[in-house]
């Protein structure tokens, strides 16, 4: 099997949500000298990208997306020690703190965004639902987040998004983080009114928004020098 064959096999296994085959092909990739970042960038990430497109086109739904995230994490568990051996840092495209604002218990939309961001190469810290605004700021400070993402389904909880921006401004931290908003009750007009840095109506739009704000969509997972990558077949 050539390196290209291994990449294709792993990508196809990812798209087919075949966990056993993904595990097997990930090990095979390392044994075949692909290197962990090559394995991610040339096989797993393209597979996830196809899954994201299928989700956007409604060919698959949240259960399949969650399964994809689970399989991807199991592959990453195999690759992670090798990445550390390479001394590669900052393998994520950015860091996001996400949660549903105080008083709101809805979570499905937030969970979809979380999974799509994770499978797009972002580090996501999910604070859950009914989150106090200072918890968002503490978490963002702690993990040096690029973005704080706030979900709200109810009109009466929208104000929690406004509160967070007001608190960030009062603490002199507004310029440190981009704040993006979404959820059933949120509109682009509301996002403008409260001074949010972005609004997305769907999960896929949220990923595109994050890419625009902090990420580099064309660049894949690592801030690496290419040493670990195979030089061809």
């Amino acid at each position, binding site marked *: 099997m050539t390196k290209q064959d291994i990449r294709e096999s792993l990508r196809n296994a990812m798209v087919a949500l075949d966990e056993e085959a993904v595990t097997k092909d990930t090990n095979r990739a390392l044994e075949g000298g692909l290197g962990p970042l090559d394995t991610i960038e040339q096989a797993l990430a393209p597979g996830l990208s196809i899954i994201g497109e299928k989700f956007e086109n409604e060919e698959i*739904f949240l*259960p*399949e997306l969650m399964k994809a995230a689970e399989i991807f994490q199991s592959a990453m568990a195999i690759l992670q020690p090798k990445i550390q051996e390479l001394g590669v840092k900052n393998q994520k495209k950015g860091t996001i703190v996400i949660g549903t604002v105080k008083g709101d218990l809805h979570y499905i939309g937030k969970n979809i965004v979380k999974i799509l961001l994770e499978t797009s190469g972002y580090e996501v810290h999910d604070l859950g639902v009914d989150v106090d605004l200072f918890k968002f700021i503490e978490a963002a400070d702690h993990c040096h987040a690029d973005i704080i993402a706030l979900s709200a389904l109810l009109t*009466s*909880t929208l104000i929690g998004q406004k509160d967070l921006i007001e608190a960030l401004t009062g603490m002199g931290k507004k310029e440190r983080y981009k704040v993006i908003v979404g959820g059933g009750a949120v509109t682009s007009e509301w996002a403008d009114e409260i001074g949010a840095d972005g609004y997305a109506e769907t999960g896929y739009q949220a990923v595109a928004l994050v890419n625009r704000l902090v990420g580099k969509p064309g660049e894949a997972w690592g801030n690496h020098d290419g040493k670990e990558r195979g030089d061809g077949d």
Partner: protein
Amino acid sequence: MLARDNEIDREIGENMLDFTDICVRTEEGQMMQNMDFYMKCFIPKLGEVVKKYDIKYDPDTPVPSDDALADRVFEAALEFFVDVGIYVPTTSRNVKFTRNEVEEAMRAVQGEVWFGEGAERKVMKMRRPDDGDLPWFHLSGGVHASSEQIFLNLVEAFARIPGCDSIGVPSLVKMRERSYRVKSPLELLACIRTVELAHQGLRRAGKPGMPILNNISTSTHAASTIAACNPDFGLRPSDGFYVDSLSEFIVDFETLNKAAFYNRWGANICSVSTPLLGGYGGGPEGTAVLGTAYMFIGPLVFKGEYNLNAALHFKHKVSTTRAMLWVDAVINQATTRNTKYPNLNLGYLASGGGTDMYYHETAAFLLSAIPSGGHVEATHASKAVVTDSVLPIEMAFNVEMGRVAAEMTRKDALPLVKQLLEKYENRLKEPPKGYVYPDAYAIESGKPKDQEYLKIVKNTKKELREMGLPIEDVFFH
């Protein structure tokens, strides 16, 4: 009469759980994390029953008339619910019920619910697919009104619409020009004010006894809801009281607190289900099974007497995609063929009022739900997020179109729904915004003022009549 009194419930059968039994059980189920509930129980079992019962979505048949399919969906839903149960986040427990307990709760459902007072007292009866009976018309503006004047105008207009059986009131956006936040004293005050205004509007319409079915749309909190139920503010047990599960199958103590109060008050309880197509239910097949399984939560857990189904597409946030119409049709058919639990249907539309698309979407939704055995909560424009987007003429159209749909069988409706889908399906991503109340109506008189708005309404109704839908104007004609 307190029909849910413990002793009376006990007489129904040995497997009948009363509300106190339910509350006790929320402390006794298996402890697990929320995500484990979905990943280990909910998603695998739903996939299993969809396959086992051979549930298949056909995009070419958005309104199916396959009774065998409906019955298989019902059986799949029952097996799914008995296996999976509900998740109570407050106690982190997965609470399950036996098949006997579920079946006994469903057998105890009366199949008819009395609402309202005096001259406006009416009964909502069970419908069946293709039965030709008129559905219940619940004209609801559970969307936000920017001022008390618009609020009053809307309530009065809804109540005056011939054929209106019950109303839902808008929610107030602000108290003294200030947005209120969830669980706040301002929210509680806004809830009380909402009820006071609703009764003022009903009196203006000369329909003081007309039932209010959406409880208090301003309220998100049990304390606010219960406060506004004080008799001094006007809500009555004969109104309708919504109790919502969170999507999917989440029943928290906030919800049960409301249900506890309504049960002891003897109020008409409505279970609310919002299965999400594309969410944990997966595709159309899983969502149809899930939406049907929600019908067991109402009578069993909340002691509900009827249901409100507001199934939604996870991405478009509407009820009118092709797959959503199929899902709603199947949920209604499965439920009304196999239970006595009346089901209202709320359609979320992409478009705004005063657009041709609003009328196309509403017609398609009603032609799917009503011949399938469902009752009607009037469709909500603009995904129900635009303030003042509820318009009286559009409310009246739900009655006009609903009466036509009631005369049709599922087979009659299918080709019409397909024609309507052709008109709007490719516009769902970027729908026309339409009108808001202050642009289309005179605030002082409450009458339509914008001629372009009226022209669009008139022309679109004409177009629908030419399609073979004999709509008769009931309002402002």
